């Protein structure tokens, strides 16, 4: 009983932190650009391959792996925005803008995943854990890798919060999320802000990828499950709401950890979907989502 409880708490924190890291990027993008970025999953995949390249192939330090993943996925995110979203920004007010950008970012995800498949092959590659070893609490094994992942995730989320509330660029992103026209009139360089936002969000997903690669494997499909889970989190929390996303990440982590303890891992995802079905029926806008405008 105690063991179960400890396992649930530990797994909630780990799963919640990692979901939060991927989902918060999607929330940031939705709040600012009003698009659901389906390429975030492949950023996780790219991050895990960069982790594999730096840690296993080159044998360099974990810090370098994280920095390299951050930089590479940042640039990839900027590029994705310029290729798949920027040409559509003039249709921003069309009724199907969400769907069109959903499809183009999905196309980017398809291309990234399958280029990885062509170039690197379908093999699952072991990524060295960033930190090896672990600690045992009440017979529950807690690898330091997972702990480090949770700490880095929380630090990055806190850093993002500070960036958004304290810095000039962060405030500009929030201004755009709240009122595009007013932000423009105040002289916010909206054109530069969009790629920056998507780069930043992608970089968070890339860092998550380095850690997830260490937990599981690096392979072309590594981003699919994180993407689905992040989608559930952002919708559960209410699209565009940052606090909602963080609460939802831990709530989803808790549901999944509990389900894994009680009915086993196979059923945890369908149970999650079942919960989402009910949440959406009861609260169509998610936990903290607002029906229309007020975001972030």
């Amino acid at each position, binding site marked *: 009983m105690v063991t179960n409880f400890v396992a649930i708490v530990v797994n909630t924190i780990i799963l919640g932190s990692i979901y939060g890291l991927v989902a918060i990027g999607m929330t940031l993008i939705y709040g600012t650009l009003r698009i659901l970025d389906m390429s975030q999953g492949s950023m996780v995949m790219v991050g895990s391959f960069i982790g594999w390249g730096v840690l296993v192939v080159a044998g360099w330090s974990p810090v370098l792996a994280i920095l390299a993943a951050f930089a590479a996925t940042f640039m990839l995110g900027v590029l994705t925005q310029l290729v798949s979203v920027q040409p559509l920004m003039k249709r921003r007010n069309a009724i199907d803008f969400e769907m069109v950008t959903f499809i183009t970012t999905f196309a980017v995800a398809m*291309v990234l995943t399958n280029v990885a498949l062509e170039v690197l092959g379908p093999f699952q590659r072991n990524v060295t854990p960033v930190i090896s070893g672990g600690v045992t609490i009440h017979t529950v094994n807690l690898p330091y890798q997972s702990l480090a992942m949770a700490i880095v995730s929380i630090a990055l989320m806190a850093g993002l919060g500070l960036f958004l509330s304290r810095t000039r660029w962060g405030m500009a992103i929030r201004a755009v999320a709240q009122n595009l026209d007013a932000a423009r009139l105040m002289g916010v360089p909206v054109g530069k802000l969009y790629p920056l936002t998507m780069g930043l969000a992608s970089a968070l997903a890339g860092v998550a990828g380095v850690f997830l690669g260490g937990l599981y494997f690096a392979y072309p499909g590594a981003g699919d499950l994180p993407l689905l889970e992040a989608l559930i989190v952002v919708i559960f929390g209410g699209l565009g709401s940052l606090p909602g996303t963080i609460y939802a990440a831990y709530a989803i982590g808790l549901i999944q950890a509990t389900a894994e303890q009680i009915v086993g891992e196979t059923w945890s995802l369908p149970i999650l979907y079942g919960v989402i079905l009910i949440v*959406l029926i009861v609260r169509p806008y998610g936990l903290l989502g607002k029906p229309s405008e007020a975001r972030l």
Partner: protein
Amino acid sequence: MTDHAPVTGRQALARSAFPSMTSGRWGLTAFAVAIAAAIPLVMTNQYYLSVMVTTLILLVLNISWNFVLGVAGVWNFGQLAIYAMGGYGAGIMMLRTSLSPWLALLAGGVVAAIAAMLLAFPTLRLYGIYTSLLTFAFAEVIQYMILNDGSGITGGSFGLPSVPGLFDTLSIDDQNRAYYWTILAIVVTVTLVLAAVKQSELGIALRSIRDAPAYAAARGVNPLRLRVIAFAISGFIAGVAGALYVCAEGSISPSVMGLTPMSVYVTMLVIGGLGTSTGPIIGTILVQIVATVLVTRPGAEFTILGLFLLVVVIFVPDGLAGVVGRYWRRIGVWAAEGENPAADEPPDTGEAVPDGTAAASQAEGSPDPHVA
């Protein structure tokens, strides 16, 4: 939208089910169908013929999906679960009872239509992306339930084996041809029926909800009732497609659902042109050709499809059907000039386009109509 302009009375709507089809266009359509019907007579390669049968089944599915996604504008990503339920429903009924396969096609459609209506109810309070997640979650739950089904009804991850087909008495070669012609006839029927529905009062109401929900509701269109009807129509056709699949393949497994097949089918619809009548046909055939050529290299296949999808959405928002439609319209104008110049409606109204491409192009986001 210009759709509301001619809606002054029921007579205005009742003039024709296909207002844009001139006799020349009917002739071209009949010619295309005749060529498609002649293919099995010339084509002797059974592998390619079976690929074409699969393509036709996918066409039925995609046409049904296009109706709910493109015409009604509801982001239903649970269509593959509806399709699978039609297939499983028909298959289980054929295995458990001595139901004739032809009746099983209908039964599969009815099962799927009921499932689709049940799925429609929880989505009534949702819009856009939330609808897509709810319906996708529904599909995932269905897939998991089938995968982990230990009762033996669905056969779990192995699927339903040895389901009777429609033409079990014929030789293999003849079976392929018989399926080809049967499903081609179904595709033609479904396309014509849905094109007529699209121009009917129901179809106009559905498109008005898609393009201007608040305005449509203010004009007395009931979005809730119509969404359930749209789901039922589309679900029935998807269920028939599933039943055709189970008959033609002789089996069905949970792998017909999931993210990978779904991404291929969405690509087909979007490349072809969402919400148009010819779009699903063009998109499905094109993507199937790419898939068949690159069958041994899935990585290359999906990279090409992804790039293609990106280019089409950005540069040709109304899909390839829009491009074809523009030429089609020119041919129509040219053909009509000989008969009766006045019969041709001005090309800039939504009604004048053979398959609603103008309506689609506006909805797909040419900058003018909805800009606040």
